[in-house]
């Protein structure tokens, strides 16, 4: 598994910075909660002053922002954004790296099948995703307990992080699929991020306009929506099955497409 350890080493620095960024996001987010809820002024009153459309844009409706769990639900949207950006870039980069850096000729004449190469790379990518997820999990639990006046919502956090992991997986494989299908690495990376951006904007549009509710199957952010997860206390099984199906399909396409296509040297 030499390839696996090489990939891990290559992404060490990047993973480190992303983890720091994530910790900073969760930390500063919860710190703001502490300063604000301690200030005596009810945040709910403040938010209620915003017009309804602005509230839905920020995903603020339906959350009691005075509680740590409600506030974290809003913060989760941004945590998810960071994590999915990381996942998509990782997925696109890890496969297209070879063609972008012109090392594919070197790598693929080695006595290792393309299948094995992809598997090692995907495993390395998955390990990165798991690490980021755990960093988010631990920093969330730590900061919520530190700033949240001892509110116990650990079980909610666990479920949210599980949902986050599915989101990461989904977008990671969107990245790999794009690269596996398209020859030019730059185009594929941009395409993958466009998918992310479009689904993200779609989430906001659906929030604003209730008529578009049927479109929620098109955007993964809606599958693992913080509000629903925290009210239910668990992930919605329909969405979990849907995500698993998508992930399996994308893994299959990644392998097949990359195996078959001509690699540009």
């Amino acid at each position: 598994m030499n390839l696996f350890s090489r990939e891990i080493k290559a992404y060490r620095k990047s993973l480190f910075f992303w983890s720091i960024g994530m910790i900073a996001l969760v930390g500063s987010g919860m710190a703001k909660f502490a300063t604000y809820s301690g200030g005596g002024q009810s945040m709910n009153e403040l938010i209620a002053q915003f017009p309804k459309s602005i509230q839905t844009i920020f995903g603020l409706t339906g959350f009691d922002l005075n509680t740590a769990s409600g506030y974290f639900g809003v913060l989760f949207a941004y945590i998810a954004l960071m994590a999915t950006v990381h996942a998509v870039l990782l997925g696109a980069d890890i496969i297209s790296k070879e063609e972008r850096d012109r090392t594919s000729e070197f790598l693929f004449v080695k006595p290792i099948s393309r299948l094995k190469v992809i598997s090692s790379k995907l495993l390395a990518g998955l390990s990165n995703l798991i690490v980021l997820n755990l960093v988010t999990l631990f920093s969330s639990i730590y900061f919520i307990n530190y700033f949240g006046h001892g509110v116990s919502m650990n079980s909610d956090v666990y479920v949210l992080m599980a949902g986050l992991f599915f989101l990461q997986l989904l977008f990671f494989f969107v990245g790999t699929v794009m690269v596996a299908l398209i020859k030019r690495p730059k185009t594929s990376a941009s395409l993958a991020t466009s998918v992310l951006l479009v689904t993200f904007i779609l989430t906001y549009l659906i929030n604003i306009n209730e008529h578009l509710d049927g479109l929620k199957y098109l955007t993964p952010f809606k599958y693992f929506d913080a509000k629903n997860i925290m009210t239910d206390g668990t992930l919605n099984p329909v969405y979990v099955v849907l995500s698993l199906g998508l992930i399996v399909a994308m893994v299959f396409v990644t392998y097949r497409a990359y195996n078959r296509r001509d690699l540009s040297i």
Partner: protein
Amino acid sequence: MNLGVGVLSKEDSGKTVDFLLTKPVSRAKVITSKLAASICLLAFTNLVFSSVALVSAKLISTASFSSKTFLLVSGTLLLVQIIFLALGVLLSVIIPKIKSVIAVTLPTVFTFFIIGTLGSIIGNDSVKYISPFKFYDFSYIIEHNTYEIKYLVIEAIFVVIAIVASYIIYIKKDIRAVS
């Protein structure tokens, strides 16, 4: 921002930097031309966006509104784009080897975006100085029919410093020849 980061670093990643820099054109002129081209591109997209938005708004809107104010608001897009362009160019000369432009652009832009939105949810005023997305407050523009001067000044100062620094760094920088 993609434009800003890509315009200089793609010479390096596309291995054309040798060819370009051995021509009898000074490095400063190279940067100037690239910047001018990028600004033209941004201005053009902004023009298209503003005109389409203005026309659709006039067609759809039931109440009358001032076109000037509308154009001012859509003009904030260009102003924000220029900040990110300058930031991108600066980053591209500072970071030695950029393998993937989008891996630099996307996290940066999203970070500023998140800082901006989280800050405005909290009502924290200092984010207005940090995140370019929040420099131009729409309600102020609509009320006063003009931009807030201090933010224009901040933007101008930042853009000037970033561009000048990029020039200086790029002119003095050692650039690796294509092997």
